[in-house]
């Protein structure tokens, strides 16, 4: 059977990266040698080709961009005493930082270096260089295209035509540019910056106040500290690393499965044939989704508090004499109980959501499947396990994966319910801390940015591996464009 399944080779499959690069390079050479004088000149001066072809507005835009980027690169404007441009690149190795103070050589007072900004601006400058190369390519390409238009007797496109193309053939450029810029500035740049902090000594926990902004690169020392326990704080971090990792995975598995199957069962109950008041029940559960999590979770936390109603009720019933620390908020409370409680309370949060989703899917199950099963004399239980469950699981596999990943990163539930307790001492993670809440404590509370970044990268690797392995195999990915 396997032999019949021949993979259809794609056009690009036969080429490896080097061949692709080679092709690209020879195209660049051809573009230069074949191009008109304007095209040749535009390799050096942006927009020259456009001027040559009388596309003045376009040429002016290219030239303006080139001048702007070059101005930043050469004159190095600075923000808060930290420069952009070539100086930023020189500073990026963090070798010539200063503590500030009076400099007798120049008779001036120097500001202390801010290494965070040096690294950040260094990356911005690198991004600027990439943009420069991109615009360079665009401008040469535009000129070369105009050359070719001339050769076949067409007029080069006018600026008006270029603008119109942005609404038609190049509409995707118009539509994606805002998102790409926003993502570059607010997602990619910050992520790259945080990753880079993992390779620095930026750690306020053992820095004195004077040098809070002074740090340097230290290779993989932080990774060694977390994974093997080397270094000054390494042992304490490393001690807590495996327990937190283990709990994160246990939590993710239980939180996902309980909510998933709980939701399916609830959906089955609500959608039962002949049941009246379906709408009322659905509305009640949707209500709990609509209420902001910080409200409902803090409400539950206070319900279960030491002197709260639940403990009082249990006391009145004579079941307990001392308050139970359900969420491990006080010293000496049970860690196991806190862990069980967050999983149980998370069902309260998650089940209505799965219920809503599976309700729609349940209604879509072809009814002839059930008819056929009934004719064959299958029992209700059997139909559930043989038809309903496989169908729902099959359709919602992508959701199952994304909810597993979501649970690994489930910050709100833990932070609002237990705050990671019990036994939270400085940067040591508490009994219910997940990797993400630990990351939050390490960075926001303790200023251990480098260790936090290591934990963040590690969390990313876990989720990435899980997602890529399962998602790439899934139907939704491979047949992504079948419905189009």
């Amino acid at each position: 059977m396997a032999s019949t399944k021949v993979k259809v080779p794609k056009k690009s499959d036969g080429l490896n990266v080097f061949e692709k690069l080679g092709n690209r390079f020879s195209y660049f050479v051809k573009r230069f040698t074949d191009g008109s004088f304007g095209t040749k000149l535009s390799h050096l001066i942006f927009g020259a080709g456009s001027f040559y072809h009388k596309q003045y507005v376009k040429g002016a835009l290219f030239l303006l961009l080139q001048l702007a980027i070059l101005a930043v690169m050469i004159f190095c404007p600075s923000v808060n005493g930290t420069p952009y441009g070539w100086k930023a690149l020189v500073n990026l190795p963090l070798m010539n930082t200063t503590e500030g103070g009076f400099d007798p050589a120049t008779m001036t007072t120097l500001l202390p270096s801010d290494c965070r900004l040096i690294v950040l601006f260094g990356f911005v400058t690198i991004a600027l260089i990439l943009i420069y190369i991109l615009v360079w390519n665009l401008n040469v390409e535009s000129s070369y295209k105009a050359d070719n238009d001339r050769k076949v007797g067409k007029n080069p496109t006018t600026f008006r035509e270029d603008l119109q193309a942005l609404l038609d053939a190049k509409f995707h450029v118009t539509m994606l540019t805002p998102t790409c810029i926003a993502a570059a500035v607010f997602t990619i740049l910050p992520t790259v910056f945080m990753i880079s902090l993992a390779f620095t000594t930026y750690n306020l926990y053992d820095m004195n106040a004077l040098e809070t902004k002074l740090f340097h690169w230290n290779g993989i020392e932080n990774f060694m500290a977390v994974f093997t326990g080397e270094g000054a704080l390494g042992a304490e971090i490393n001690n807590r690393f495996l327990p937190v990792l283990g709990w994160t995975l246990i939590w993710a598995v239980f939180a996902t499965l309980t909510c998933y199957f709980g939701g399916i069962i609830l959906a089955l109950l609500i959608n039962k044939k002949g049941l009246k008041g379906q709408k009322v029940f659905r509305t009640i559960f949707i209500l709990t989704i609509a209420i902001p999590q910080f409200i409902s979770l803090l409400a539950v936390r206070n319900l279960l508090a030491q002197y709260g109603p639940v403990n009082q009720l249990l006391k009145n019933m004579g079941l307990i004499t001392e308050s139970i620390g359900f969420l491990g908020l006080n010293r000496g409370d049970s860690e196991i109980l806190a862990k069980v409680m967050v999983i149980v309370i998370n069902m309260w949060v998650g089940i209505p959501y799965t219920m809503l989703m599976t309700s729609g899917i349940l209604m879509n199950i072809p009814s002839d499947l059930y008819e056929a099963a009934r004719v064959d004399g299958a029992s209700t239980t059997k139909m559930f396990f043989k038809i309903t469950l496989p169908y729902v699981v099959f359709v919602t596999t992508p959701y199952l994966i994304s909810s597993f990943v979501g649970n690994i990163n489930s910050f709100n539930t833990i932070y609002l319910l237990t705050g990671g307790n019990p036994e939270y001492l400085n940067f040591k993670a508490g009994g219910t801390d997940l990797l993400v809440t630990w990351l939050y404590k390490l960075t926001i509370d303790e200023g251990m940015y480098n260790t936090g970044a290591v934990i963040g990268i590690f969390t990313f690797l876990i989720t990435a591996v899980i997602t890529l392995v399962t998602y790439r195999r899934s139907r939704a990915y491979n047949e992504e464009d079948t419905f189009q």
Partner: protein
Amino acid sequence: MSTLNTKKVASQSRNRRISLAVTYAVLVVLAVIWLIPIVWIILSAFRCEYQPDGTFIGKVTSNFFPKSYGLKNFRDLFTASYSNVPHAFLRWMLNTLIIAAVDCIISTFLVLSVAYCMSKLKFRMRKPFMNISMIIGLFPGFMSMIAIYFLLKSIGLAGNTEHPAYSVIGLILAYSAGAGMGFQVAKGFFDVIPNALVESAKLDGCTNFQIFHRIIIPLAKPIIIYQALMSFTGPWMDFIFAKVIIGADNPGYWTVSVGLYSMLFGSFSDANLFTQFAAGCVIVAIPIVTLFMFLQRYYVEGVTAGAVKG
């Protein structure tokens, strides 16, 4: 033979009735469990109990049902100053409303444009773009949050105590900038719109822009409402981003969730503000729950689409 059949039918219908009764019982119990925390918050908001010496009891008490009811919590909530900000709660509400409204417009626009491109346009970078956006989405949000804070702070748009309003702009940027990456649900919706519709419009000479705003947008009303609902309610529900970017020093410019959270855990909380916190929760929850209830159909549609598409 016929009596046997009637008997069988009768026992079947009795079985069915029993199983229905059990279902009702289970559902009612579950509904009560799910409603308890909500009911309790509402009861606490209206709680008006005093100690024998006349001081108001604002902390968590062990009785589920209040001994007496009143509107004192709501009155205090709207008139009291928190962190020396007069009428703080009203300001927080107004702030959140502005942030949510602007974020809603920007985010919805970004999501729709990306989703349309990914679903209906063919271009070279389509698949790479989808893969990159998926990989980026896997990084924990907090990692970039701290860097976004540094970034915004270096241009004065975060933790700005001189011009606190600038931090609000920063927060709006932080909320809406990432929106375009969450295009999957909307893309799934666009995928279902038949391509033949787009093709025939193209034959009639429509540009891609015309197809988008004359054909796709009118058909996309459910998903527009879903996205708008999601991005509008986001700022009301989030508190970590708001807390970090606006900063602890600008209590007058907090969003309502940061304010309410700090009533329980912040510097000015004295554990006696729980009933006021509850009153605040009720005030916040009312508009959001109303929106959800009115737009329930669209929400369910979006969630279901998201389930299958991941």
